[in-house]
């Protein structure tokens, strides 16, 4: 049995899909990072804030200051460019992965599913021989050219994209999404400015159509992409679906473009050969077919198995927590839950001195950017991080034993706002961790 499986994964396959993927990924990353910089977000998000919500275990990741952050972006931009042209590929992929991931780890409030996706893909790219054709590297060293790679090199990327879609689809199988068409019913009436489609945005049936179609699309598109006969049509649907999401929800940024580009990997080697045809003069196809061989392929495959298992289990970790996932958000991130809920909060904090009973109301705007405050107000782990930070601030300001209390109201999917956490609990004394936070009040419909 292992023999059959191993064969399925290790049989030679055309390197072409990998090459297209490399070029497209590199270009898209270059454009995406340039856009980020051009919009002034490097400064807004990584230079101006005086406090950052770090990831547990990555508290050592710090912004590098104005010059440092812009230099880091410049390095990552350059790495993306090098990946595109396949120059110093392995090093560029490592630099891109480390640089991009470092940036993303600075502040939880900037978390986006497609940033996580980019980090994962960048990590995979390090280990894939995507510079063995149509690359400066092989121009310099023609002997390194290969026409084929073990099939798993393509399959792992297919797996990664499939995981995004299928988990995004599974996440939509909830009562709010399917039975109430929420949050679409909240979001669509804000889209009446769209020509022709606009007037329909007030209609509840349109919200249901969007919800159900989105769920079906996410759940099944992968299978139609995998099937040779339906692939072309399915990719047409991919394009239309993501262009539609870009038109209706421009706020999701680069996500549609990332998915449209990444989904090209489903196409066959012949398709990609033709696609790369315009680069032919540049490639100087090797005289004979040659397969890229991993010297320690078994180890690679074993590690890959672990990676795949993690990717499947991580989005399911929410099952280990009690309570309503959308309310507590315990196990919410890194699970491909994209545009799944409308949530807004308002958080008032007070700091009291245990000994003197001195009492201070906190002005969040003094410590957080509007974006940070918005994200913090609805996510328990960020609320706790901020509460700990406040305790530290007030300790520095001379308070002996600061206690931090939060009066936080949250609205979810159009329901009226409710008290989110127990306002009598001293959050400064609550530990950060992976366990369920008892001080988050239970969700009420």
């Amino acid at each position: 049995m292992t023999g059959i499986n191993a064969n399925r994964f290790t049989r030679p396959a055309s390197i072409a899909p990998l090459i297209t993927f490399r070029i497209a990924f590199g270009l898209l990353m270059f454009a995406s990072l340039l856009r980020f910089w051009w919009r002034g977000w490097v400064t807004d998000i990584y230079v101006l804030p005086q406090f950052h919500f770090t990831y547990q275990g990555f508290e050592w990741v710090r912004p590098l200051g104005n010059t440092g952050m812009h230099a880091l972006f410049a390095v990552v931009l350059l790495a993306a460019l090098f990946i595109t042209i396949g120059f110093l590929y392995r090093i560029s992929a490592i630099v891109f992965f480390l640089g991009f991931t470092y940036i993303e780890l600075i502040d939880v409030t900037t978390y986006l599913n497609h940033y996580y996706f980019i980090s994962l893909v960048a990590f995979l790219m390090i280990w894939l021989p995507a510079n063995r054709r149509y690359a400066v590297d092989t121009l310099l060293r023609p002997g390194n050219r290969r026409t084929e790679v073990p099939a798993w090199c393509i399959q792992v990327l297919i797996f990664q994209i499939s995981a995004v879609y299928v988990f995004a689809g599974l996440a939509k199988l909830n009562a709010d999404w399917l039975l109430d068409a929420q949050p679409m019913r909240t979001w669509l009436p804000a889209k009446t400015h769209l020509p022709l489609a606009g007037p329909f945005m007030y209609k509840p049936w349109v919200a249901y159509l969007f919800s159900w179609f989105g769920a079906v699309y996410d759940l099944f598109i992968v299978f139609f992409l995998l099937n040779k006969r339906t692939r072309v049509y399915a990719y047409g649907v991919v394009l239309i679906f993501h262009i539609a999401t870009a038109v209706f929800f421009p706020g999701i940024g680069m996500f549609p473009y990332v998915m449209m580009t990444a989904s090209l990997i489903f196409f066959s080697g012949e398709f990609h050969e033709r696609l790369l045809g315009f680069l032919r003069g540049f490639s100087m196809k090797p005289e004979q077919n040659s397969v890229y061989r991993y010297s320690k392929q078994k180890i690679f495959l074993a590690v890959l198995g672990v990676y795949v298992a993690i990717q499947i289990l991580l989005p399911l970790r929410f099952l280990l927590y009690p309570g309503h996932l959308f309310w507590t958000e315990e196990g919410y991130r890194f699970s491909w839950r994209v545009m799944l809920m409308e949530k807004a909060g308002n958080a008032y904090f007070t700091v009291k001195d245990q000994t003197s009973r001195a009492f201070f109301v906190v002005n969040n705007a003094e410590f957080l950017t509007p974006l940070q405050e918005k994200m913090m107000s609805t996510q328990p782990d960020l609320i706790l991080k901020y509460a700990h930070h406040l305790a530290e601030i007030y300790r520095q300001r001379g308070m002996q034993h600061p206690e931090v209390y939060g009066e936080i109201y949250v609205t979810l999917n159009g329901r009226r706002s409710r008290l989110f956490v127990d306002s009598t609990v001293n959050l400064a004394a609550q530990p950060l961790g992976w366990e369920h936070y008892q001080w988050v009040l239970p969700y009420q419909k």
Partner: protein
Amino acid sequence: MKKISLVAIAAFLSATVFFACSKSGGSDGPETAQGFDKTAMLTAYADNLIIPGYTAMQQQLVGLKAASDAFLAAPSGATQATLKQAYTAAHLQYERVAAFQFGPAETALLDIFVNFSGGLDYNFNTSGELTGFSVDSVTIEKNITNGGYNFQDMTRVSFYSQGFPALDYLYFGPNAIDKLNASPVKRKQYINDVLARLKSLADKVAGDWQAYRAGFINNTKTDVGSPIGSMVNQFAYQLDLLKGPRIGWPFGKQSNGMVFASKTEAYFAGISGVLAVENVSSLKKVYTNNGSGKGLSDYLVALGKTQLNTDVIAQFDLVTAKLGAVQDPLSAALTSNPAAVEAAYKEIQKLLTLLKTDVASAAGVQITYMDNDGD
């Protein structure tokens, strides 16, 4: 079978996208037939509330100039009392347009130059520095003596030495009449310069709205910087100002009860209370579009949020009532009637929560003053 359904789906989606993407030459096809007419709402906002608001602001400043001239010509208790009426009328009119801090007003930085609040992101308790609705009397006196001031300077010192805070100090500050009699020329010059600056800002914003109006009424988006997005964000921002620099922070909410009486709005005129009441009742007028049936409140009702809308209006009224119960001058009430201030503060918090969470969420607006991606 599969193929057919896929083709059908693809056809449907292409149609949707085609409709969504195709440029149809402006806003043909009124939205009224299908639901709520946002352009009609925005038109009513522009024509009934915003543009008339700035026109009235211009007129009030003309009236203020006349009363100011009379006061400067013959500084006395009597002319000062008349001036105070004109000043109050002008400042109250500013509260009525304060929530329109977007578009032309944002370009002109109207709120900063006319009625600087100190900013929400600035530590109110910073020692030795001016915060909240302070006035920089030291810089004002220095400017009067030395001249050479530039009201366009982008510094906190500059913001605190012009606009209503400067007038409040120069008209009604300690020994205002005596100081005016002692060094009339330069002092009068400064007052007139402050007034001229105020007038030119109001003129600019009122004038710019003529050209801005068309874009405003036709932009029915809700993203950052859109009319609806901006107005909903202003509800939250103005309530944050009320909770912070207008009431809460001078009351000592950030400072363990230590009161900062002199950091109340228009401290010397002693009209902080009526200004706060006007601010929040104007905000309600913005919310309901002055009860015209074309307000954001009506939009919420059209979206099926009737109960929420009822609660928001009731909470607006409750805040207005509680604030009204705080007797002016607020600076004195902060210590003489803390219970009334505390009661108003509590209701302000509740209103802020409703606007920042329920209303913003229902309207599809993000409360954030910066552009960003999300998912």
